[in-house]
């Protein structure tokens, strides 16, 4: 456990202290803010669009967070350091994964500013001071403390950042409640987190199969694009109804029936695998156990094969 924590901490710190991490975070904030501002200008303020539309951006952004994870370790020879220390492949993969997942959580956390801004714009809260100003201040404070804690490697600052984060979350909870969007906003965030967790796990897997970061990025983005956009599109094109069977069918009709069955089955498989479909449930405030099971199986399978890849590639 301690080893996993040590590796995760190093990975998280590398992201916070390196330009790449901040570029990805800022880009993410920029694109998600578009989906926040656009509906605002048309007179309504909601979190739903933010949740629904960021997926496609995550498809391209998150692989950039994971591409270096294992590929770089191999290339610069530090994998030799890890694998000749009393550390298992599973610990390496889990540590790296948790480190980058924590960074993604910070990315999501920083979008809480929209919640605070919305609370004010909607004019539902008694004063702009609370929760809006307080919330925005707490969000910024948390991020600054976190950056300082990482650069200085200071535990007290890290604890202060955690306290500020909890305060921010409570404040955000209050703001959501005032807006009457408590449910959808929370499930939206849970959905985005789970979706990102899947994306990152797949990224860890491809990063472990190559020593070239660009290959890792491209292949992860391609897989994610397939699992989100393409697969939904395909399942929309395919028939969503069971074919009917004619009473006295000749060979052609039977063949058509069987073919229809096959297509129907494929549609259902696509639907089940489509990560987008599930996210829409989340955005509408629906938490379905099956969605969690799907996401978790993606994560477990990806990490499992990442571990196997590390074990057999030497």
């Amino acid at each position, binding site marked *: 456990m*301690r*080893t996993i924590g*040590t*590796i995760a901490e*190093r990975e998280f710190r*590398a992201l916070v*202290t*390196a330009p790449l991490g901040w570029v990805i975070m800022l880009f993410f904030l920029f694109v998600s803010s578009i989906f926040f501002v656009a509906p605002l200008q048309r007179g309504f303020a909601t979190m739903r669009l933010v949740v629904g539309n960021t997926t496609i951006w995550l498809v391209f952004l998150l692989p950039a967070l994971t591409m270096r994870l294992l590929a770089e370790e191999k290339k*610069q*020879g*530090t*994998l*030799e*350091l*890890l*694998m*000749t*220390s*009393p*550390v*298992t492949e599973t610990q390496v993969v889990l540590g790296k994964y948790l480190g980058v997942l924590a960074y993604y959580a910070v990315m999501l956390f920083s979008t809480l500013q929209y919640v605070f801004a919305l609370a004010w714009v909607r004019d539902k809260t008694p004063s702009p001071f609370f929760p809006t100003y307080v919330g925005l201040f707490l969000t910024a404070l948390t991020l600054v403390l976190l950056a300082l804690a990482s650069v200085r*490697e200071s535990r007290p600052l890290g604890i202060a950042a955690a306290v500020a984060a909890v305060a921010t979350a409570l404040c955000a909870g209050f703001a959501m409640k005032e807006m009457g969007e408590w449910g959808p906003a929370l499930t939206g965030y849970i959905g985005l987190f789970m979706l990102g967790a899947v994306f990152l796990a797949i990224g860890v897997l491809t990063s472990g*199969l*190559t*020593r*070239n970061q660009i*290959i890792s990025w491209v292949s992860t983005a391609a897989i994610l694009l397939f699992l989100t956009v393409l697969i939904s599109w395909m399942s929309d094109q395919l028939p969503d109804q069971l074919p009917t069977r004619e009473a006295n069918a000749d060979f052609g009709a039977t063949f058509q029936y069987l073919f229809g069955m096959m297509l129907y089955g494929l549609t259902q498989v696509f639907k089940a695998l489509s990560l987008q479909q599930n996210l829409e449930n989340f955005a509408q405030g629906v938490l379905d156990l099956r969605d969690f099971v799907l996401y978790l199986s993606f994560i477990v399978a990806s990490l499992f094969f990442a571990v196997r*890849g590390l074990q057999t*590639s*030497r």
Partner: protein
Amino acid sequence: MVEVDNLTRKYGAMLAIDRVTFRAHDGEILGFLGKNGAGKTTTMRIMTGFLPASSGTVRINGADIKEDSLEARRQIGYLPETAPLYEDMSVFSYLAFCARIREVPSREVSTRIEQSMKAVHISERRNWQIGKLSKGLRRRVGLAQALVHNPRVLILDEPTEGLDPEQIIEIRRLILGLRGDHTVILSTHILSEAQALADRIIIIDRGRIVAVDTTENLTRAVVRAQRIRVQVEGPEAAVRKHLEGLSGVQRVERLPDEPPRYVVESERDTDLRSRLADSVINAGWGLVELERIEPTLEDVFLHITSHHEDRIPTPDPTPAEAPKEEAAA
């Protein structure tokens, strides 16, 4: 104690090392000597658990590197050929990371880091970013990393390769300071380095061990004839005649230099140097240069070839050089 038995490793069809067997005893420095591509790195990577062997076993103080891998790895400090450094970290936090993954207890971490930084004289650079350090300093950080958990066994792959002479002296001094407290296995392709550092030397050639002996014995065996380079100011013919006439001299060879220089080969176990110097000066000539020619790894191979015909490996039918890069998936 490190026990290596019948270690064999193939890369595809190529046999990189072939039934390598040896022991490293507690507290000794063992030199692993061989030309580039002989199989030193491969052997060390297997010993440290990074590479699986095709067959054979490695036991580190009784723990098998395959069956009881974590326990074996706990006892090892390893400096790979290129120091495995995270360029974005500071020296201190890098060493802290290494100490933690080596299971150093939390409250000992900072004292262990201080000790290992002190051992390699890098304490004043503790806050430097590793990516900004010079090659010699990076190697020292690599050495500190191998020492930070105070392992009983140290495995160092060409620790002085690519450094300048001052840095080499520095690193050698550090390594000699480790004798006794640690079992050190170091690889090199330079005979004089193995002689300077190791208590015992193992010579590996094309994946096979061709000689194991104490440094003393091996050196004595190699120096079948001492060779001295001399330059004497005096009439050429007389000087040559004089040198050839000295007792104990086997052969005198004139080098193509002008003014003439000679290589004087003595009989076995004879140190000619002081006698040669005295006699030249007594003859009234000037002794401009007198230098012993250090034997090289090539001389060792020559020696082994001429004395142990039976131990010479037959050349592999497979190509000696294979592409070193693993294919990226």
